[in-house]
């Protein structure tokens, strides 16, 4: 009994080591890229590492940027937990932001913020659940490939959001494409004065708590994790695996919708998106980093927003395109997902402890015999 607990400990420690090593390697690659292409490598590297902390404003923007990452990370935790890479969150985020702005402008200042904000969050969640219903039901009833279907739908829904923006809420008095300004009752106030952190972070953290309880303290969360970890076992003990993964995808979609709504209320005064924002894929990275564990999602989200802000700083001060961050993101996903990455070390550690224990046991039983 004691032995298995020890190997379990080694497994979970190695899990953390693997993730940290993956992030470290990816970060090193980022630094290497910067050193190779920049004329003044020391300055650029320092900007990338320390730039995000150089002013209270920037520290605040790390937090603000992490808000949608947290919510989308939670959303992808659901998809990833049941092993369905449903990427519809990418366009849900966009359309939810669009619909929420539309409804917000329609209502105007008639409702106080205390009612307006929850109402819009619910609308965002409904938009998300309705949209993710399509790939989820196709996955459940038709056994269609959920990745391909969701990616195709993303292109369709993005166009729909652009159409709503262009034809139904465009502000013709401004020179760029954008909606009319949203009423003040849906612009979340900033907190912690100097840092200019939007209160969206509170919504995100409340969601982390709720989702963690759902994952670890309810029977649905438990079933969901079993369906993802071992579908054959789940089927054998009589779970409705299709039903559970269907529900998980709807919940994930609803969360992505809340994410879009929160982002609009937290950082924008107008709706401006004319293409999908990439938050669905960012959410996947966060979920992978957090190993499908909602409690760890904020850490993954903060890491991602830290390197994003770093890239932005480098982009403005050193003229290096911030797109290189997506390459880093890809490397992190690959390293963390790679089973064979550091698996030799893990096996050796487990093998050694088990052998030592066996030897001890052998010694004890030998003594008893004597």
């Amino acid at each position, binding site marked *: 009994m004691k032995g298995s607990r020890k190997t379990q400990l080694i497994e979970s420690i190695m899990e953390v080591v693997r993730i940290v090593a993956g992030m470290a390697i990816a970060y090193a690659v980022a630094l290497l890229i910067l050193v190779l292409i920049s004329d003044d490598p020391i300055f650029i590297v320092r900007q990338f590492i320390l730039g995000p902390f150089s002013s209270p404003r920037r520290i605040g923007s790390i937090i603000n940027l992490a808000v949608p990452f947290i919510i989308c990370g939670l959303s992808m935790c659901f998809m990833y937990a049941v092993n369905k890479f449903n990427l519809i969150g990418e366009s849900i985020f966009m359309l939810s932001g669009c619909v929420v702005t539309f409804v917000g402008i329609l209502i105007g200042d008639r409702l106080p913020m205390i009612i307006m904000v929850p109402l819009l969050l619910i609308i965002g969640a409904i938009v998300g659940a309705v949209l993710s219903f399509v790939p989820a039901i196709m996955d459940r009833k*038709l056994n269609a490939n959920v990745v391909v279907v969701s990616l*195709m739908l993303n292109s369709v829904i993005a166009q729909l959001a652009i159409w709503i923006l262009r034809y139904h809420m465009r502000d013709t008095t401004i020179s760029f494409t954008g909606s009319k300004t949203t009423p003040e009752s849906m612009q979340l106030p900033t907190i912690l004065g100097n840092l200019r952190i939007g209160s969206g972070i509170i919504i995100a953290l409340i969601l982390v708590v709720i989702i963690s309880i759902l994952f670890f303290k309810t029977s649905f969360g438990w079933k969901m994790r079993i369906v993802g970890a071992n579908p054959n076992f789940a089927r054998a003990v009589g779970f409705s695996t299709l039903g559970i993964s269907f529900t998980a995808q709807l919940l994930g979609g609803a969360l992505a919708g809340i994410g879009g709504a929160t982002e609009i209320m937290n950082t924008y005064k107008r709706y401006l998106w004319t293409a999908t924002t990439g938050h669905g*894929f960012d959410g996947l990275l966060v979920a992978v980093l957090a190993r499908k564990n909602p409690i760890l999602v904020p850490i993954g989200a903060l890491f991602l927003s830290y390197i994003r802000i770093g890239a932005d700083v480098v982009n403005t001060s050193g003229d290096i*395109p911030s*797109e*290189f961050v997506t390459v880093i*993101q890809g490397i992190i996903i690959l390293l963390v997902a790679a089973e064979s990455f550091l698996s030799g070390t893990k096996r050796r550690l487990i093998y050694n402890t088990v052998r030592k224990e066996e030897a001890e046991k052998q010694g004890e039983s030998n003594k008893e015999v004597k």
Partner: protein
Amino acid sequence: MSIDIAAFIADAIKMATPLIFAALAALINRHAGMFNMGIEGMILCAALGAVTVAHYSGNMWIGVLGGVLTGVITGLFIAFAHLTGKTDLYLTCIAFNLMATGGTVFVMYLLTGEKSTTSGAFRSYQIPNINIPIIKDIPFIGKILSGQSLLTYLAFISVFVVWFILYKTRIGLRIRSVGENPKAAESVGISVTKVGYIAFLLCGLFAGLAGTFLSMSWVTFFMKGMVSGRGYIGLSAQNMANGSPIGSALVSLLFGTTTSFSTTLKSQSSFPTEFLEMIPYLATILAIIFTSIYSISKQKRIERGNK
């Protein structure tokens, strides 16, 4: 509103070319038992690779080679992550496509200082269109069959090449046996990993041609995100045709027609372009729904028959 039908069909065939290449690329992997979504990113990288190599070498044909090589290298990269690194293939492909989207913009910016297109900075090369001597003089058909890009003809030839490789050669047999039952294949001494690498290599070849077509024939420059789902559409096409090369080409032609339809309408009507842009993707989703319903009902019929 008047539509020149011959021009419309010719355009549909042109639009289908990258889809056919993409479908063939996905098809080879499918027969090896792997669902490769990464072709989307592979095509994107190849498109950039082709114009870049062509610009720096000053030779169009070396550019084509560069595009194909980029496709192969990216294919081997995914193979390495999946087969040697043992990553989940879905996750690998999503991560790779992400890297390709940002990476191509990054590389383009380093080379040209532009972030959206290479059209200003790189010399443009157009793969020649071929006029077939006698056919081109036939009134209606000549306009459709003649004067297409060299790569379009190559795409149709490739359909038969892939069919031949898969069903008439030793490596094709090995690929199919690995896809059918990897354990059985391994037990008779076939290295599953090696065959997997070969499948990705062949896949990269066709993904490379698809990318080269996009950036050197469809248009003559690289544009950010220019693949816009063609990889996925090709992937669905071969899925619908159940892995048959000829069937995949036919479904690709169908999807090419919807794309052509949407561009034709865009120039001829005042309908909001947003909805016209949706057509190819909606068509793909609908086609997936219909083929799934068909195959499910067929399976049910078989089950009932057995009872």
